[in-house]
Structures are given as C-alpha cells and as structure tokens.
C-alpha cells in the first residue's frame, strides 16, 4: 500500500512538471520567433536606410533601392477592403445566428461557416483566380482584374467565419436577462438587438473584428494568387500591386539567404509579426474593457 501510495504521488508530481515545462516551451517559441526573424530583418538596415524602407515606394533591390511602402500600403489597403466587406456581413450573420435563426437554420449554418474556416487558403486563391478576378476586372475596368479589390473580396470571404463565430459567441454569452428585460419592456426584437445586445457585446465584437484584421493582414497564399504581384504603388483598386506577404512569397525563393534583399524580406515578415502582436494587445485591452464593465 505504501509502495503504491508513493508511486501515485510520484506520478502526480511528474505530471505536474511535464505540464509546466510544456507551457514554458510554448512561451519560449514565440520569443525565439521574435528574436530570429527580428535579428534577420533588422540586419537589413546595415545597408539600407530605415527612412527609405518605410517612406519610399521604390523597390528595386538590384539597384539598392529598398522602399517597402508599396507593400505596406497594399497590405493595409486589402485589409481595409476586406473588413469593410466582410465585417458587416459577418456581423449580420452572427446576429442572425444568435438571435433570429430558427434551430434548423442554425444547424445548417453553423457547420457551413465552420466549413468556410476549413477551406485551405490556396483554394480561396484558386477560386479567386478562376472566378473573382474576371468579376473585378469588369468592375474596375482593368484588363486582368488582379489587384487590391480582388484580394479584398477573397479576404472578406476568408474572414467571415472568424467574424461570425466570435461575434456570435459574444452575443450568446450575454446574460439572458438583458434580452428578457428589454423584450419585457415592450421593445421589438430589432430594437433589443440594436440598442441592448450589440452594444453590450461590443467588446467581443471588436475583438472579432481585430482578429479578423490580423488574419487578413497575415494571409499569404490567397492574396499572392490574386494581387497581381507587381511592385507598383496601389493607386487604383484594379491595378496589380503587392502586399508584404505576397512579396515575401514571390521573392524569397530567388534571393540568397543573408543578402540585404533577403534580409529586407525578413524585415517585412518582422513588420507583420509586430502588427500581429499589436493586434493581440488591442484585443486584450478590448476584452479587459469588456470585463471591467
């Protein structure tokens, strides 16, 4: 019995150490990523100027011109389009699922949005190339249709599941009493949704939007396939341009590791990483505000 006893206790302690070391390992990974990618990226500025990198749109590495503004603008532009298109539609879907959908509709729509999330991004890119570019070509009156609008539309579809599921969770996690109280006061369902539920769930909805933005700005393959991949500053919605991600994919294979050009691509990745980390901090503040209320 004593033997068994100490065995049981030993197991308990071992398991505990195992779990905590796993947790610490996870934290070490992110630090490693920041360190490695950061070091590689920042070494760009041994030869290129920081100011030029962020303010010039002249990207001509062969001639020593490292202006990444085009890519930054492309990333931000596509993300904004994606949020403008996908945000309201996703929110509508979330409100619908949380408050309006009869159970049978819900039981169809939930798995459907989950499936949306499961579709690989290359498949989105594939659909973008095969269908969406010809559509955007007509709208923007450009010969190919490749460009920010096409990328924005693809991204809008891709962020739908994020927006829908997180916003729906936020709406559903509201106490039932909010809704009941409002309905009991004689408010219509829509008034309840607009004046009580959505404002109350706003921290969660904001979180959903920010995470969707994070996903959109970091998305690579789908964007790369429809953006046109031309290092031209995006002056119209329908002209080919590039984003941070698409340019990395395009050029990474052709540059020797350790060259300034290559390092500049790592710098772009580092920018993406920093943006992602900022988003996380935003999300944390948003949810903390929500909790404080």
């Amino acid at each position, binding site marked *: 019995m004593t033997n068994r006893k100490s065995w049981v206790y030993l*197991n*308990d302690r071992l*398991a*505990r150490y195992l*779990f*905590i070391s*796993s*947790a*610490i*390992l*996870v*934290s070490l*990974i992110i630090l*490693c*990523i920041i360190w490695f*990618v950061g070091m590689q990226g920042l070494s760009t500025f041994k030869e290129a100027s920081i100011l030029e990198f962020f303010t010039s749109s002249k990207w001509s590495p062969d001639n020593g011109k490292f202006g990444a503004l085009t890519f930054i603008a492309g990333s931000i532009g596509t993300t904004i389009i994606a949020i403008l298109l996908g945000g309201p*539609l996703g929110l509508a*879907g979330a409100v*619908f699922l949380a408050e309006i959908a009869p159970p049978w*509709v819900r039981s*169809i*729509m939930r798995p*459907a949005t989950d*499936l949306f*999330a*499961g*579709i*690989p*991004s*290359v*498949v989105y*890119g594939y*659909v973008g190339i095969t*269908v969406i570019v010809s559509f955007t070509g007509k709208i923007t009156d450009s010969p190919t249709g490749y460009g920010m609008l096409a990328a924005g539309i693809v991204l809008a*579809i891709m962020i*739908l599941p994020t927006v829908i599921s997180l916003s729906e969770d936020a709406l559903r996690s509201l106490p039932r009493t909010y809704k009941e109280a409002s309905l009991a006061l004689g*408010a*219509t*369902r*829509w008034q309840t*949704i607009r004046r009580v539920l959505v404002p109350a769930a706003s921290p969660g909805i904001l979180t959903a939007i920010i*995470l969707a933005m*994070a996903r959109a*700005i*970091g*998305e*690579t*393959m789908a964007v790369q*396939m429809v953006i046109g991949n031309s290092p031209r500053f995006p002056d119209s919605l329908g002209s080919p341009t590039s984003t941070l*991600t698409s340019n*990395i*994919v395009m050029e*990474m294979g052709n540059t020797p590791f350790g060259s300034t050009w290559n390092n500049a*691509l790592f710098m772009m*990745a580092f920018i*993406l*990483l920093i943006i*992602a980390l900022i988003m*996380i901090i935003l999300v*944390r503040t948003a949810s903390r505000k929500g909790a404080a209320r």
Partner: protein
Amino acid sequence: MKAHQSDRLASALLWVGASAIVMLLVAFLVLILGRGLPHLTVEFFNGPDGVRGQLFNSFYILFLSLVFSLPVGLGAGIYMAEYAPKNKLTDLIRLSTESLASVPSIVFGLFGMILFVNMLGLGFTILGGAATLALLNLPILVRVTEESLLAVPRSYREASLALGATMWQTLRKVILPTALPGLITGITLVAGRALGETAILIFTAGMNVSRIPFDVNPLAAGETLAVHLFAVKSNPLPGTNADQIADGTAALLIIMVIVFNICLTIPSRWLQHRHQGKNKA
C-alpha cells in the same frame, strides 16, 4: 407601428445576409467540385503528373506535426487550465500563447526556414515542414485544451479531490474523459487547418516530391497537395495540363476537408452522447 416595420425590415435583411453567406459557400463548393470532380481519375493520382506523392505527403506531414505538437499543446493547455496560479509567469505564458496564435503563417514559414533549412542545414525536408507546422498547431491546441478543460464543471474536480484523489488521478480519470469530445473537435480543427496550410510548407518542406512512392524518409523534401495547387496555379509549367491538375487538386482538398470534418465530429458526438447518457429531466 414604425418600430414594428423596422423590426420586420431588419429581420428580412438579416435573413438575406445569412442566406448570402450560405449561398456563397454553396457556390464555392459547386464551383470547385463541379470543375474538379471530372478530373479525379486514377490517372490524376497515379499518372506521370499524379498527385499520389503529394497526397501522401499531406497526411504524413500532418501526422508528424501532430506528433510534435500534441504532447506539448495538451500539456501546456492542461497546465493553463488546471495548475496555473495567478501570477506574472502565467500571464506571460498566456500572452505568449495568444501572440503565437496571431503570428501570420508566413512568419512561421520564415522562422522555420531560418531554423531548419539554414541554421540546421537540413534543406527542404518533411521533418522541418512538420516541425514548423507544429508551431502553427500549438497555440490552437493550447487554447482548445484549456477551453475544453475549463468547460468541465468545477464540481467534478472538487468531488474527485474531496474523495482523496490526487490532481493527476483527477485529470486522468475524470477531467480528460469528460473533456474528450471538446478535445477531439479541437484536434480536428487543428488538423484541418494544418492540412491546407501552404505558406509555411513552401519555405520548409519545399516544392518537390520524392520519386519513391510513399517515401517515409523525413529528411526528403515533401510537397503537399496545397503547395502543389499553389505551384501549378501560380507558376504553371509549360506543356502540362496545369489547369486540370489545379481543378482536381482543389476539389481533392475540399473533399479532404469535408471528410475530415465528418470523420472526426461523428465519434466526438458519439462520445458525448455516451458520456452524458440518457438525460431524462
């Protein structure tokens, strides 16, 4: 009366929005499957440009990445849910997990490239791809594990501990079995995402397929289906029927995602059902 009208109008609009979302999905599926299904022939898999190798690599890399990430992800998730005291260290771990979850996959890809391809000098390998892919899985696994465990009522823990069980016994015999459906769903999610991941693998596992069928050598380069689709669609090799291959590959990917969803959600539903028993009021 105005309130009622706007109520009805809003409802109608929301119905329209929701149907648009569903229609969009249906259109996606019809488009992809409609274009791709006719190409899914034996030739498509086994022919000279067949995707047999890519299909195998997809699952092989997925399998390896789960082997790497599951123990750590589950362990960290369990720690966060069950042990973590409220202190700075826990906060830091939580922040790191969240940050890791938000890292764009291309950044993972570049990180994997520095670490495995250049620093360790492995070149493009299945091993490097799987290990990097594991990093993508990790934060989701941690979060899913933590959430599934936290969804287990506190009372189960108290009951078990109050009966004189150790924490580990409680975890193994009560909490983990109860959380199993949630865990399985989470792992499905991770697997589905990993299966379709491209950006990471381009820079770590490369875009070549071994000539040997079903090559399990982890140090060989291994192009997956998703990477293949990207390759043929964005840089079509002249002289191949690239469009047909792309159509077929896209359809195959979608079918894999659907099958995956179905295969892994059914057992978890069944588990849930068995666990909760016939719940009469």
